[in-house]
């Protein structure tokens, strides 16, 4: 594990140690993951479908409870949290989802503001009485993603690329200290995919937020990530700079060689 070197903490801002998850006892999806992430930069996790990439990043924000192991974020434990402590941890971590996962029947603005639910009491959200500072922040982000004119449109009227940009705004309005992205481009065309990953990198970079992104597209990972982690069968089999990823690594991650050009 080389890339923790650029972090002020010896190990990194986010540290996973001996992390395992088995949905069915005896059949672990991820096994003994030891990883450390620095406080900046984009890390891409690549690997075949079903190898536990999603499970790994969902353990970080507690959507999945790991079977064993520990996660430390800036020195504080994320594992084993419940109730209010879990919610307080989640609001520090933004997440961009695979199929956008916007609430389709709500407007773009309501979707972006839903990112503030960790801070705003439920009754205020219900009455749509969000603090003005949250609304200002939401408009700033809508400007940044180029969808300010769509604020009052319903989310289900948007195209896939537009929806995912709203998904990014929803994650960033949380003012997170870490951004997770779970296959954010898997339902998008190649051009839009590039734009989305570029947008994530640019907005997170401007705010100095580290990004962990699960991605199928190796080329996109190479192009935008500073660090690449390759997983196969629930274990880390490659961890290094994007520039150091070779065909033999890809063969080890995905198996076989005939598909590599």
């Amino acid at each position, binding site marked *: 594990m080389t890339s923790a070197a650029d972090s002020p903490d010896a190990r990194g801002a986010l540290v996973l140690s001996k992390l395992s998850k088995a949905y069915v006892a005896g059949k672990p999806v991820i096994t003994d993951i030891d990883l450390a992430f620095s406080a900046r930069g984009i890390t891409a996790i690549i690997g075949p479908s079903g190898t536990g990439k999603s499970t790994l990043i969902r353990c970080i924000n507690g959507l999945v409870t790991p079977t064993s192991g520990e996660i430390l974020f800036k020195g504080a434990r994320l594992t084993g949290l419940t109730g209010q402590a879990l919610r307080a941890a989640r609001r520090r971590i933004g997440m961009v989802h695979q199929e956008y*996962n916007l*609430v389709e029947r*709500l407007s773009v603005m309501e979707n972006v503001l*839903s990112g503030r639910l960790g801070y705003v009491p439920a009754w205020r959200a219900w009455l749509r009485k969000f603090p003005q500072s949250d609304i200002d922040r939401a408009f700033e982000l809508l400007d940044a993603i180029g969808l300010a004119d769509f604020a009052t449109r319903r989310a289900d009227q948007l195209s896939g690329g537009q929806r995912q940009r709203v998904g990014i705004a929803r994650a960033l309005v949380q003012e997170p200290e870490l951004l997770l992205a779970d296959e954010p481009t898997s339902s998008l065309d190649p051009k839009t995919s590039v734009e989305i990953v570029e947008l994530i990198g640019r907005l997170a970079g401007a705010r100095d937020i580290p990004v962990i992104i699960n991605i199928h597209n190796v080329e996109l990972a190479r192009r935008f990530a500073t660090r690449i982690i390759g997983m196969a069968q629930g274990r880390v089999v490659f961890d290094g700079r994007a520039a150091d990823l070779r065909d033999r690594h890809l063969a080890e991650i995905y198996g076989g060689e005939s598909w590599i050009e």
Partner: protein
Amino acid sequence: MSEAAQVPTAPRAALPASWLRRAGFIALGLYTLYAFSTLEITFDRFVRGLDQGAKFLARMWPPNVEPSKLALLSQGMIESIQIAVLATFVGVLLSLPLGLLAARNLVPAAVSWTARGIIALCRSFHPVIVAILFVKAVGFGALAGILALIVASMGFVSKLFAEAIEEMNLKQVEAVRATGATFWGVLFIGVLPQVIARFVGFAAYQLDSNLRNSTMVGIVGGGGIGATLFTAYQRFDYDFVLTILIVIIAVIMVSEIASAWLRRVFQ
């Protein structure tokens, strides 16, 4: 995978016949024939019935529009509409929490099964039977009818509402949960927006159905036009019966149009 490996075999079944399904249909057909034979339904009786029905209809025409009758009619009809609206309002309001508590993907199993038990109890009797119970409990009049229809509304709306919640998109809910939202935050922003349009649809349908039922509960003493209708039948005022039926049909049609409009607005 050589060519030689392809030994000619029996043709592969693309659309295999389901003998179980066929047996089911045959059993249903046989039972229908059996039930028909035991109930002594004969063609002769049917023809005689048609004849009597014609006489009955002849006695109904023309509808009775005497002012005194119309006053009686409007008083009963207004009471029926009031019963329907009040019962729908209270019943639907109670269905909202009951439906949420019955959704298995939202609450612990013990809670949802309890709520499902209550819903099943509400649904187990026809509104008229529930109305008889309430007439015994609170006496004759509109209150008994309202209470009976509240029970019916809760049974119907909360059951369908719970099913709508169970069919919602859980990924959208999870995305809201991932922001650090509380249970109530998830409910208001992640769950309700997905299902509220269908809930309004169920409520509109229930208003419709309560209007129809509110004309029924009167027959057993639950107030409304039903009592007027029943009295008219018993006094052989068939021309007044026709007037009442026409007005009921008109009111139901208007409510049908109104509820369709309501559903469209909330889509």
